[in-house]
């Protein structure tokens, strides 16, 4: 296969995937120390999806995320330090500390918010796409969701609405096998999720969510269709999460060796590294250098976040309304 992306693009994808991985692994180690407030859902293991999808997008395109949103943020270009501060509930956070892990957003990057409501996002993605259609630009929107979100009425409605209005949106389902501790195979009555999506009247396919290239190529085709006015698509990407549903989840519902096995067999980072070095597209040293840079950045980000000022108490009552 010929090199699908330039070396620069590949290295960028690697940087984003490694950033997500190390960001989350670090949070996993920091959480028990008790300085990170609230509920946190880590994205480790699913990096190829966020990055594979977002790398097909332009800055002006938008994404709508989920409770497990750190990966989507980083993939869409949110900066590590203000993200970290948001997660620590500090004034310098992307949302001034008012949002937290489940509500990080950066509108300047087209990241329209993590969302604590399962199924809350996809209708918004349909709406963003309606705006793009009406404004006559070629932008697209992506609504991310998990396998569990696929059973929410709002998501079904959003899919049908997008088909009816023929708007440029993608519904990306990250099937990591579980919603909390219920298996996807149990909660989705359908034989196949992509088949159910297709029955709504749009192209839908299943891809390998641990393979950056597979994600990228499938998404690129769907984005192209959307930009050309051919309407929405659904993409289901199979993957696994390396941690519990939320930090603190003892994961008893997973077989004892499940995570270890998946870390061996379903690690999108190793797969990417093997591929790009194996094909000779990138040097091991370049990858390592990026990795080192990322680790240093995250160290700094955590340190700064812990030292950062808390939100001013006056902000408690600001930004409820634009006027009044």
């Amino acid at each position: 296969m010929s090199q699908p992306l330039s070396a620069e693009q590949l290295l960028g994808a690697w940087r984003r995937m490694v950033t997500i991985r190390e960001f989350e692994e670090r949070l996993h180690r920091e959480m028990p120390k008790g300085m990170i407030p609230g509920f946190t859902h880590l994205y480790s293991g699913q990096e190829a999806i966020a990055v594979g999808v977002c790398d097909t997008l332009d800055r002006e395109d938008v994404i709508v995320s989920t409770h497990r949103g750190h990966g989507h943020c980083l993939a869409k270009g949110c900066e590590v330090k203000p993200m970290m501060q948001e997660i620590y509930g500090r004034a310098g956070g992307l949302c001034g500390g008012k949002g937290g892990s489940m509500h990080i957003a950066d509108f300047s990057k087209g990241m329209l918010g993590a969302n604590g409501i399962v199924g809350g996002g996809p209708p918004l993605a349909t709406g963003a796409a309606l705006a793009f259609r009406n404004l006559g630009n070629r932008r697209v929107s992506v609504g991310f969701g998990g396998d569990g979100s696929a059973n929410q009425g709002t998501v079904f409605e959003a899919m049908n609405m997008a088909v009816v209005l023929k708007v440029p949106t993608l519904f990306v389902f990250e099937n990591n096998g579980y919603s909390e501790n219920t298996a996807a195979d149990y909660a989705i009555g359908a034989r196949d999720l992509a088949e159910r999506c297709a029955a709504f009247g749009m192209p839908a396919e299943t891809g390998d969510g641990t393979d950056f290239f597979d994600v990228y190529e499938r998404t690129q085709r769907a984005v192209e269709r959307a930009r050309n006015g051919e309407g929405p698509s659904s993409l289901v990407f199979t993957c696994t999460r390396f941690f519990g549903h939320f930090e603190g989840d003892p994961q008893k519902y997973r077989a004892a060796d499940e995570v270890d096995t998946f870390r061996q067999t379903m690690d999108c980072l190793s797969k990417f590294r093997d591929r790009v070095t194996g094909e000779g597209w990138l040097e091991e040293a370049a990858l390592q250098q990026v990795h080192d840079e990322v680790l240093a950045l995250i160290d700094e980000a955590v340190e700064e976040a812990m030292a950062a000022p808390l939100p001013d108490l006056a902000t408690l009552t600001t930004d409820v309304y634009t006027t009044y």
Partner: protein
Amino acid sequence: MPVMSYREALTDAYRLSMRKDPRVCILGEDVAGGAGASGQRNIGGIFGPWPDFLPEFGEQRMIDTPISESAIVGTAVGAALCGLRPVAEIMFSDFLGLCLDQIWNQAAKFRYMFGGQTSCPVVIRVNTGAGMSAGSQHSQTGYGMMTNIPGLKVVVPASPADVKGLVMTAIEDPDPVIIFDHKSLFTDKGEVPEGEFYLPFGEAELVREGDDCTIVAISRMVKFSQKAADALAKDGISVDIVNPRTLSPLDEETILESVEHTGRLVVVDESNPRCSAATDIAALVASKGFSSLKAPIEMVTAPHTPPPFAPNLERAYLPGPKDIEAAVRRTLKG
């Protein structure tokens, strides 16, 4: 000033707003009408508020949708985040139960929980209220629940002029707004300013001035309160009638000033009584206007029951001029 019906004023407001700003669009079930059907395409909406909007504004701006209330609101909200000024129509306010999340946890919260990064200029238009024997699931209000939601503005136009001025303001407002237009006011007529006309949010209308009691009345109840006031006038009793126009923001000042003047308060709302707009306004006065009060606050509301179907029951369910009159008289004894 031209006289028009509440429905005509509503049509006028949306039409002018759409002419003024190409980003405004309306989406909902049958708002254009006839999509995909074998006959005429331009129906003008259920109850006819959008006559000839389709030919004038086109399919991109008059958007017929499936019956999917969550997606109707969610689509409008998402579009509002990305540059449109959408109006989502939910046919009856009773159906808010199907799309509350998109209002409560999405539209109304974005600005706050994203730290002021965005505004969400979406308008949700709902038709509301009892009076047509439409039964338990098509006759409720719901603005009490909506007023509980921070980040949302809540509009309750009581007259043709109100509906025009408040709708035009709502559409230009940067925040999410829900407008309850009242089904039983649709044929009521009144003077309405021509052309662009804006009524500010958070400024109540002092519909009538008097000395003996303050009536704060919501939506259709303003009209009933006027009837009560006419009857009371015959006995030399004069009342202030305050029409809040918006419940959120609420013009606390006008209400408190009026009660300061009259010393007595009757709140009239056709909604169910518990945790309602009536209790909200009563509580406001009991906390911030207590020293003015000379008598117990009276609340005239529907009973704590669903709206019944049979017309005689529905009449008994709704507060009427007589109930308001009696409440005022009670405060004068108190």
